[in-house]
C-alpha cells in the first residue's frame, strides 16, 4: 500500500471538491493535510474534512495557490493522506504565535515526547521531523520557530514548513487542527517516520556581486530604514541601477540575499514605506551585509533540483512542496507553469501550496521552493 497519497481538484462547489479530492486518499490515514484556496469557505472545508476523518489528525490551511500531483494550480483544493505505517504522528495548535507562542511550549514538549522523540538527543536529525504551518500576515514565523526549536537543548532537529496565504489579498490567513480554526496561531506536526526523509531548499537566484550593509533596521517589524547610512530605497535602486520610483518593480526579480559561506538565504522585499524604508517578508538584521540577487533560469534550476532530489532516493513515496508567492508570481508573469509542471508531475504523490514564506530548520526564508521527500534513501 502507498504510504502517501495526494490529490487535487478545481471543483468550485466545496462539498463536491472535498468529496472529489478525498476519493483517492487513504480511508483511515493517521494524518491528513489539506491546502485550500480562499474560494472555499475555510470553516466549511475544515468541518467537512473533520467529519470525514474523525479518527486522524487533520491539519489544513489557506493558501495563495496550490500544488497537486500535476503541479501548480489556482483556486483549487489539494489534500494529502499519510498511512498509519508512515510512523508516529502528534500535533499541537499554538494559539497565539504573534505574542505568546511561549504558552504552547509545554504542549510542544509533551507532544514530541509522546511519540518517542528524545529531546536531549545529540543526533536530533535522526529523531524525526517537525512540520510547521504558521499563519501569515502577523510577522510571527520566527517567534513560532524560536519556541519550537527551544524544546531541544541541542541543534539539528529538522523543521520544515510554510506560511499560510490568502490568494494575495493580504487580509487574513487561516490554519486549523482537528476542526479548530485560528488566524493568529500555528500548527506543529511532530513526525517520527518509519521511512527516511530528505529536505531540500531550491534557490533560483544568484548573486549579482553588488552588496550593501543594513545600517538601520527594525528586525521584528522586518523593516530596513537605511543601507550604508543612507535611505534604503535610494541605495537599493542605486546599486541595482534603476530609478528609485521604479524600485518596487524589481523586488520580485532582484531580492536580497544574506550569504553564509556558500549558501544564500533570500530576504524578499514586500513593500516600500512612506519614509523610503523597505519592509520585507522575513526578519532583517542590522549590520548584516546583503547582496542583490538576480534570477537563474527557473526551469533549468528546477530540473537540476528535482534530479538531485530524486537521486537521493532509491524509492520515493511522496513529496511535500512549498513554493513562495513571489516565485509563483514570477513564473506566472513569464508563462512558465506548463514547463515547470512537466517537471513537477514526475514526482510521486506530490502535494503542497504556494505560501507567504517557507520554514527550513531554524530560519524563515523567502522566494524559495522547499521540498520534503519521504521514502528509502540511497
Amino acid at each position, binding site marked *: 500500500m502507498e504510504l502517501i497519497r495526494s490529490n487535487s481538484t478545481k471543483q468550485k462547489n466545496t462539498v463536491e471538491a472535498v468529496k472529489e479530492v478525498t476519493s483517492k486518499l487513504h480511508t483511515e490515514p493517521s494524518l491528513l493535510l489539506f491546502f485550500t484556496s480562499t474560494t472555499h469557505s475555510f470553516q466549511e472545508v475544515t468541518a467537512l474534512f473533520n467529519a470525514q476523518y474523525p479518527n486522524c489528525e487533520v491539519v489544513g490551511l489557506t493558501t495563495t495557490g496550490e500544488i497537486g500531483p500535476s503541479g501548480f494550480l489556482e483556486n483549487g483544493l489539494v489534500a494529502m493522506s499519510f498511512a498509519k505505517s508512515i510512523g508516529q504522528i502528534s500535533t499541537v495548535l499554538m494559539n497565539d504565535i504573534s*505574542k*505568546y*507562542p*511561549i504558552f504552547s511550549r509545554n504542549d510542544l514538549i509533551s507532544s514530541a515526547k509522546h511519540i518517542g522523540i528524545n529531546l536531549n538527543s545529540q543526533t536530533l536529525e535522526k529523531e524525526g521531523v517537525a512540520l510547521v504551518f504558521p499563519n501569515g500576515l502577523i510577522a510571527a514565523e*520566527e*517567534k513560532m*520557530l*524560536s*519556541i519550537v*526549536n*527551544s524544546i531541544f537543548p541541542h*541543534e539539528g532537529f529538522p523543521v520544515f514548513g510554510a506560511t499560510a496565504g490568502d490568494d494575495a489579498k493580504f487580509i487574513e490567513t487561516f490554519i486549523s487542527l482537528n476542526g479548530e480554526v485560528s488566524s493568529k496561531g500555528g500548527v506543529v506536526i511532530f513526525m517520527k517516520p518509519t521511512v527516511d526523509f530528505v529536505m531540500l531548499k531550491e534557490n533560483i537566484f544568484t548573486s549579482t556581486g553588488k552588496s550593501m550593509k543594513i545600517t538601520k533596521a527594525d*528586525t*521584528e517589524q522586518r523593516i530596513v530604514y537605511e543601507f550604508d547610512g543612507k535611505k534604503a530605497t535610494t541605495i537599493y535602486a542605486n546599486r541595482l541601477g534603476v530609478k528609485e520610483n521604479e524600485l518596487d518593480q524589481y523586488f520580485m526579480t532582484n531580492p536580497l540575499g544574506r*550569504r*553564509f*559561506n556558500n549558501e544564500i538565504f533570500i530576504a524578499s522585499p514586500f513593500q516600500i514605506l512612506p519614509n523610503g524604508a523597505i519592509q520585507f517578508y522575513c*526578519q532583517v*538584521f*542590522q*549590520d*548584516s*551585509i546583503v547582496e542583490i540577487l538576480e534570477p537563474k533560469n527557473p526551469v533549468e534550476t528546477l530540473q537540476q533540483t528535482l534530479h538531485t532530489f530524486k537521486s537521493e532516493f532509491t524509492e520515493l513515496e511522496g513529496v511535500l512542496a512549498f513554493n513562495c508567492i513571489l516565485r509563483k508570481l514570477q513564473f506566472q508573469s513569464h508563462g512558465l507553469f506548463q514547463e515547470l509542471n512537466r517537471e513537477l508531475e514526475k514526482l510521486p504523490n506530490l502535494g503542497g501550496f504556494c505560501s507567504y514564506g517557507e520554514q527550513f530548520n*531554524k*530560519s524563515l526564508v523567502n522566494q524559495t521552493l522547499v521540498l520534503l521527500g519521504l521514502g528509502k534513501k540511497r
Partner: protein
Amino acid sequence: MLKTFFKQKENHSDSLIEEINLLTPDEKESMIDGLLDLVALLKSSNEKNAKGDSVFIERITEVKNTVEEGRTSLITSSDNIQRILDEAQNIHSITAAVEAQGEQNIGLVNEGNENMDKLDSQMDYVKNVFTNFEKSIAEVQQETNDIIAITNIIAGIADQTNLLALNASIEAARAGEHGKGFAVVAAEVRKLAEQSKNALVNVNKKVNEIVRQVSVLSADIVEKSKEFDHTQEMTRLTSEFFGKIAISEKKLFTSMSGIKLATDQTMAEIITFRQELEAIVHLSEQSTKRIDELYIFSQDKFFISTDMTSYISQVKYLVEALKNDQL
C-alpha cells in the same frame, strides 16, 4: 522571595503566583518597570551581539577571500614553476643533444680536414701528371716537326727522282730501240715517284692533323691546369674554414657543458622551492577548512541570536500583559 524561588523549584510557580498576588501596586509597578528595563537591556545586548556576529562574519568572509586569493595565486605560481621546470628540463635535453652533436661535428670536421689534405695531395699528383703530359706533348710536337722535315726531304727526293726519271725517258727515247726497255723502267720510276709524292701528301695531311690535335690538347691541358690551381686554392681555403669551425665547435661544446651544469643547479633549487610552495598550498587548504568551520559556528551563533530576538520580544509582550493586567 528569592530564596523561595530558588529552593522550592517544583512548586515554585504556585508560590510565585501567591507572592505576586500579595504584592502591593507600587511593588508590582517596580517589578514591571524592572522587567521592562531588563528587557531593554537584553534587547540592547542582543543587538550588540548580533552586530558583533555580523562583523565577525564580515571578517571571516574577508579572510576567506584573502586566503582563497592567496591560494589561487599559489596554485598559479606552482603551475608556473612546473612550467619553468619543464622548460629547464627541455633546455637540459637540448644542451645534452647539442653537446652530443657538437662532439659529432668536431669529429666530422676533423674527418673533413683529413679529406681536404688527401684531396690536396691528389691534386698535386694530378698536376704533376699534367705537367709530365705537357712535356710529352712538347716531345710529340718536336717529333712531328721532325717527321714533317723528313717528309719534306722525301718530297724533295721524289721530285728529284721524277726529274731523273724524266731525263732517263728522254735519253731512252734518244737511244731508240736499245733504249725501250730503259724507257719502260724510267716510266715506272716516274710512277713510283708520283705515288711516293701522293703518299707523302697523305702523310703530311695526317701529320698536320696530328699537329692540330696535339695543339688543341696542349691548350686544353694548360686551361685545365689553371682550373686545377684555382680548385686547389679553394681546397686550401676550405681547409682553413674547417679549422675555424672546429675551434668554434669546441667553444660551443664548452658553453653547452656550462649551461647544462647551471641548468641542473637551477632545477634542483626550483624543485625545492616548489615543494615549499606545495606545503603552503596545503596549509592554506587547512585554513580554508578552519574558516568553513568558523562559518558554521557563526551561522549557529546567528541563529541563537535570532532566537534571542524572538524571546526578548515575547518577554516584552508578557511584561506588557502583566502591566495591563491582561493578555
